[in-house]
């Protein structure tokens, strides 16, 4: 297995369910890591890379729902597939509202689990890509000088060089110079591209 292969984490307090879920997922060709409790999972240093969490909802100590809440509070986008012995509706609703991708009732069908894992892993991959992209943008944005950030803010608002120069009390030529630097540093190919980037940066800025 290379480090890029998706990992399926399984958290279940029942040893037999844990062991057999691991075997089943492995037989599907995925890499599996199991944990007997939510605490054990939280203490584990997870590698970056696409993954998903197969989580028992009812466990002593921290329950599956507790773990879901902790992950979401930490801004972790790890998709969760809940497995439960009961089709407990209030619990299901709560879990789905909190972003669970799937809710499987034990004993679950192999096919359902496989589909859920594939969907969840793909989703996590997308989420990680988006996060990495934003991280990258942030890094580039951080490399801009204070003046360049001021110019960029005006450019993405659709101001012409002359208007920006007037607002900043400088010459059109200087603005043009800054703008070229901004495009280069941010790696933008057009003003439209730069606007899209600034949109992505907005919630973080």
């Amino acid at each position, binding site marked *: 297995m290379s480090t890029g292969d998706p990992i399926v984490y399984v958290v279940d307090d029942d040893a*037999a369910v844990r062991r*057999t*879920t691991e075997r089943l997922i492995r037989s599907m060709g995925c890499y599996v890591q199991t944990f007997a409790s939510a605490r054990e999972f939280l203490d584990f240093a997870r590698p970056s890379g696409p993954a998903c969490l197969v989580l028992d909802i009812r466990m002593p100590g921290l329950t599956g729902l507790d773990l879901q809440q902790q992950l979401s509070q930490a801004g972790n986008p790890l998709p969760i597939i809940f497995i439960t012995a009961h089709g407990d509706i209030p619990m299901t609703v709560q879990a789905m509202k909190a972003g669970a991708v799937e809710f499987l009732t*034990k004993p679950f069908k*192999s096919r359902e689990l496989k589909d859920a894992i594939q969907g969840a892993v793909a989703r996590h991959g997308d989420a990680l890509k988006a996060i990495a992209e934003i991280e990258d943008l942030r890094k580039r944005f951080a490399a801009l000088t204070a003046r360049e950030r001021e110019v960029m803010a005006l450019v993405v608002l659709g101001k012409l060089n002359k208007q920006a120069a007037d607002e900043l009390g400088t010459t059109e030529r200087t603005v043009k110079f800054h703008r070229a630097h901004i495009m280069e540093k941010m790696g933008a190919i057009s003003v439209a591209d730069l606007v899209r980037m600034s949109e992505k940066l907005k919630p973080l800025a």
Partner: protein
Amino acid sequence: MFSAWMGGWGPGILAALLSTLAVKFDDLSQPLHGLTFSANEVPRLLFFLGTGMFISWLTGRQRQAEAALQSLNNELENKVLDRTAELRTTNDALKAEMSERQRAEADLRRTEADLAHVTRVTTVGELTASIAHEVNQPLTAIVNNANACLNLLDGGGKSLDEVRAALTEITEDGERAGAIIERIRALVKKSPPRLAPCDFRSVVRNVLALALNESSARGVAVRTESLETLPLIMGDEVQLQQVLLNLAMNGMEAMANVEKARRLLVIGARLGERDGKAGITVDVRDSGAGLKAGDMDKIFEAFYSTKSDGLGMGLAISRSIIESHGGRLWATSNDGQGATFSFWLPALERAAG
């Protein structure tokens, strides 16, 4: 003289007189002359008459005494007969009362056993969700393993060791599910109490298997203490399971409003001596709401419950079960938080030799 002896007082006197005359007038040929007494004959005749009369009196008295004795005898015999009849009647009544009492006791035992059975079934009913979950776990494991086997075989069957491991686990999990069903069946089955030497640790194991799921659903941590060496006790394992299950469920329910991190149920079994007799003491300690001073006496009464949905039978039945095992059941308030329910059971006395 002989007549006097035979005849008694009245006839004796007559016979004595006649005999006296006969002695005087033994010559019957001169009846008229003989009526005169010569002076020297008088003392002899008087002596004869006196002796005859004395003998008559003696025999008369003897006869009288004999008659009195006879009548006393008869009277006594009658009295004995009367008394015997009386005693027989009393005895019959006593026997009837005894068998009535035995019947009543048997009825009571049957009713108690019925009630214990009903509450046992009720408890199992309350545990249904947990039991379903408990059975579902090995089923899930079985389905997972079977699916894994199919995947492995579809993949060319290169990992036959893995397939074999999975199949071995399938049989184990099948047995695990069967054991759960068997435990439930034992609790639900209606059978008369059967005393046998039993190891209390197995009672604890079975109860934990039933209650652990319930505890995780209720967010209660369960801990067992000091269960390494325990003497055997004489008891009905199903009834003892019922008692322990009841106490454990009560403890968990008592912690419903306690902050989650503090919900701890401790089941401890230890050696315990009571009135000089060896035995075991079992404690079920919770960190729940605890007992109010006024509740302490009432909780063991039938139909008294501190729970809104409680039937109020659990503790009353638990106590009667423990007492029928020659033990005691009691409750104490913990120093910190919650309550401890304890019971003591006598150890099985080792057979001599």
